[in-house]
């Protein structure tokens, strides 16, 4: 290897054959980084698909086999949980929209390759939220958040119900009614999302391809903490690469972004996918989304921090950048007054030793 991105996992994702030249130290760095980012299963899938498996060190084959089986079993369990949810919601005829990992699996997208997802995320119309919650509670799910403050946090400010947990199967379902917190600086009209959903089977749906990508971008660049999220950037890369083969994808994406008012997250998504993972984004698309860029100062900071926190979490700079990005994510999530109140409540609780 002559040139490296500073992340062996990114190097492997771009050219899986580089694995064949790894020495022990490189394997350990690569596997450590993959573990931190929950990407071991993905690397295993790359090795399998590219026919490299048999030429890997035996111990790596063991580690990959373990990760491969783990990913398969988790995906199987996730789909089974979805099956159980549909059974619990028997009689509820409105669309159930499966989001994130479950959607990638249901649609058999590249983004599901070797992916380990543990929660099921579904979305229903807000007016049906209580019905769905009650039906799940009746069927044996329980609230995993008992605390009054946390319950209120979800119900008043978040974009989902407090997580529901199934004690027998150990799985959690998040029931969303939109894709962004109600308190945030960006909000999305859920009805617009629901207007474009695409059927999978019966009343099970996924978002449209454009909305799936936008959801992931919003989740990572607006609502998320960004650090240690290489997996999410990769799923965007996968979706872009896969959807771009569909006629008219880019035009639909740009129109939709405008309609939903999600220009900034899309701008970041395309910029950093291209910059970090070498995603093929047409020049004119990058140009057109240029109008969604933040000011030069913010962009300069994001350009420094985002690539840094996608790399192995070993440097001091990584710690600083993730802290800044963590604060940014809270800043974007709620208005200042609420943020201060929220952080004060959480810190007080920590001081009292109520949580670890």
């Amino acid at each position, binding site marked *: 290897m002559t040139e490296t991105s500073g992340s062996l996992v990114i190097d492997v994702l771009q050219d899986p054959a580089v694995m064949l030249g790894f020495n*022990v*130290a490189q*394997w*350990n760095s690569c*596997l*450590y980084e993959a*573990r*931190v980012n929950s990407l071991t299963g993905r690397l295993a899938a790359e090795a399998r698909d590219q026919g490299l498996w048999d030429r890997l*060190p035996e*111990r*790596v084959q*063991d*580690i990959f*086999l*373990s*990760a491969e*089986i*783990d990913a*398969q*079993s988790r995906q*199987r369990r996730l789909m089974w949980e979805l099956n159980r949810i549909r059974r619990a919601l028997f009689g509820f005829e409105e669309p159930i929209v499966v989001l994130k990992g479950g959607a990638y699996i249901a649609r058999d997208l590249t983004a599901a390759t070797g992916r380990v997802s543990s929660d099921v995320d579904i979305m229903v119309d807000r007016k049906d939220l209580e019905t769905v919650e009650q039906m799940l509670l009746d069927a044996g799910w329980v609230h995993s958040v008992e605390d009054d403050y946390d319950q209120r946090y979800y119900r008043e400010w978040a974009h989902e119900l407090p997580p529901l947990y199934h004690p027998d199967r150990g799985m959690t379902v998040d029931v969303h009614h939109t894709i962004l917190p109600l308190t945030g600086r960006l909000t999305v009209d859920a009805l617009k999302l629901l207007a474009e959903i695409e059927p999978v089977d019966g009343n099970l749906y996924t978002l449209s391809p454009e909305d799936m990508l936008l959801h992931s971008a919003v989740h990572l660049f607006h609502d998320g903490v960004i650090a240690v999220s290489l997996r999410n950037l990769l799923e965007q890369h996968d979706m872009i690469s896969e959807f771009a083969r569909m006629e008219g994808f880019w035009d639909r994406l740009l129109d939709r972004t405008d309609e939903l008012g999600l220009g900034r997250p899309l701008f970041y998504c395309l910029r950093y996918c291209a910059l970090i993972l070498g995603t093929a984004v047409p020049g004119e698309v990058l140009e057109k989304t240029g109008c969604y860029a933040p000011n030069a100062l913010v962009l300069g900071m994001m350009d420094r921090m985002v690539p840094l926190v996608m790399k192995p979490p070993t440097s001091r700079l990584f710690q600083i950048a993730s802290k800044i990005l963590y604060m940014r994510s809270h800043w974007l999530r709620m208005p200042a007054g609420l943020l201060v109140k929220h952080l004060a409540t959480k810190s007080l609780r920590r001081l009292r030793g109520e949580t*670890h």
Partner: protein
Amino acid sequence: MTTQGLALEVGPFVTQVRILFPNIREEFCHLYGGYPAWPEGAIANNHLSVYGRNFYRRYIKPQACVDTMMKDAFIPLPAELGMVATEMGLNWQIAVGCKNLLLFHAGVVEKNGRVVIMPAASGSGKSTLAAGLSFAGWRLFSDEFGLADIDTGEFVPYPRPVSLKNESIPVMKDWAAPGTTFSPEYHGTPKGTICYMRPPAESINRMYERAGAGAVILPSFRPGATPEIKPITRSMAFFKLVMSSANYGDIGERSFRVMTEIADKAACCEIIYPNLEEGIKLVERFMSETAGAGDD
């Protein structure tokens, strides 16, 4: 072991172990001396760090935190129990993270190429019985983790130090060959007093030699009982194996095939024994009675 850590190899796993407390490090090296280690590094299946929660907690009422990189939520233990925390972390990594081998919560020993699997809940005496057998001509595969290849069904040795609890500590100190390495006794752990024992050198030296299943024996330690071998059906053996497995469902079809093969081939019984010596006799007796009858 302070900065990069040490690559320790036990059976099919290499763990990069990093311990930031000198006392725990010393106890660890004492117990694991005799196992292959790779100071210059080896590809690691797992990483384990034992560290103080913060600067203050490293020196005042020190607490050892364990990070297994596997969504653990271990409550930190006082540093003097750090070795217990370390062993719990190593167990957790296998119990939760190993999916490439079929995993049984069982004591496993081997003699003459026939593996005996003793699946049982904690407290049934399987650790003690497996450890006892390892000083009576048997090779210890593991006192706790039976591992089987998911293609061939062969058992894979994983001779970690044996974890002895409460009353079994003096029993084993009495039974073990002279010169056997024991850790200090750790009092007041969540499971009472714990002491670790390094398996016989033979078991460690031959830890890459696999062997096929010969018998499934369900051990039942009952003080004061008359020693007894009770027949059990193959289906019962199958279900006991399934129930003892942590990753049977995760592996799916391949584990079903392997499990069926084991339950088909292995002789099976339940033994009831009042003490270690009688337990060993029963295993020996059952194995010689069924010798050559492996595929009835």
